[in-house]
């Protein structure tokens, strides 16, 4: 099974990279992009023998403990296949 975990800065936290990319797009003429936030995506491959529930359970744990920093980031996931 394959899952993706998305990790982003919490909304209230400054995202300097996103801000800089937004400005770059603006200067390149892409004026229709109003906001950019940059985050990380982890693509995880699990043993096939696991059930969907098992995979989700693991993701919930490692999403918080390993892949994200709960102090400033939040995570989200989806099971892809």
């Amino acid at each position, binding site marked *: 099974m394959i899952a993706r975990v998305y990790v982003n800065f919490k909304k209230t936290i400054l995202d*300097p*990279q996103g801000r*800089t*990319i937004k400005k*770059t797009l603006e*200067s*390149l003429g892409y004026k229709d992009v109003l906001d950019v936030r*940059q985050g990380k995506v982890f693509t995880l491959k699990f043993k096939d023998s696991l059930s969907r529930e098992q995979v989700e359970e693991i993701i919930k744990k490692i999403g918080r403990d390993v892949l994200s920093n709960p102090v400033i980031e939040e995570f989200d996931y989806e099971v892809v296949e």
Partner: protein
Amino acid sequence: MIKCGVVIFPGSNCDHDAYHVSKHVMDFETVFLWHKDEDLKGCDFIIIPGGFSYGDYLRCGAIASFSPIMKSIKKFAMDGGIVIGICNGFQILLESSLLPGALIKNKNLKFICKFVDIRVEKQDTPFTNSCTKKVLRIPIAHHDGCYYLEQSELDELEKNGQVLFRYSTPDGEITEEANPNGSLNNIAGITNREGNVLGMMPHPERASELILGSFDGKMIFNSVYNFLKKKGNN
């Protein structure tokens, strides 16, 4: 007199160092070039210095490659002008497609600042004709210095003799331990096919004065000087 231009991007931080060596150590006429300008002010030789242009946000060197000055530098390079990209400057040259390949994170995922040894692979180039040593001792300072290129293109690069510097032992051996960042084939610096554009991760401007522990880097600037002088540029 040789005229050298040092480019300043927002976040460049080796700009003053490159300027210092060019002007005070090499005695070149030296000017800063601002990223928003397109005018190269009649320079014979351009240095794209190290640093963190645009904070290294997005990808190292990526945002800088869109700047107005890079348009002019591309043209300058096409016409055979001498360009050196050091560290972040190397990354910018790659992102601008003036050189092939990419630089990804060091294999230990950490920033590394230390002296390394690099072997000079070719002597008859604008950048190495005055290297009186086979192995140069020059510092590196980067987080993203692992050189990557797809195998077939890498073979091509090697075949064309575009690899100018490789991380080596002090005796010039190419070993895994001598490779600080995981670069393919221990690559530390390459040129374009025509040989007039050099990108390198080590910082020759930090090793151009005896008081800093090495002046091997100065040999690279000396080489450029000789090359340009022969070309009749002064």
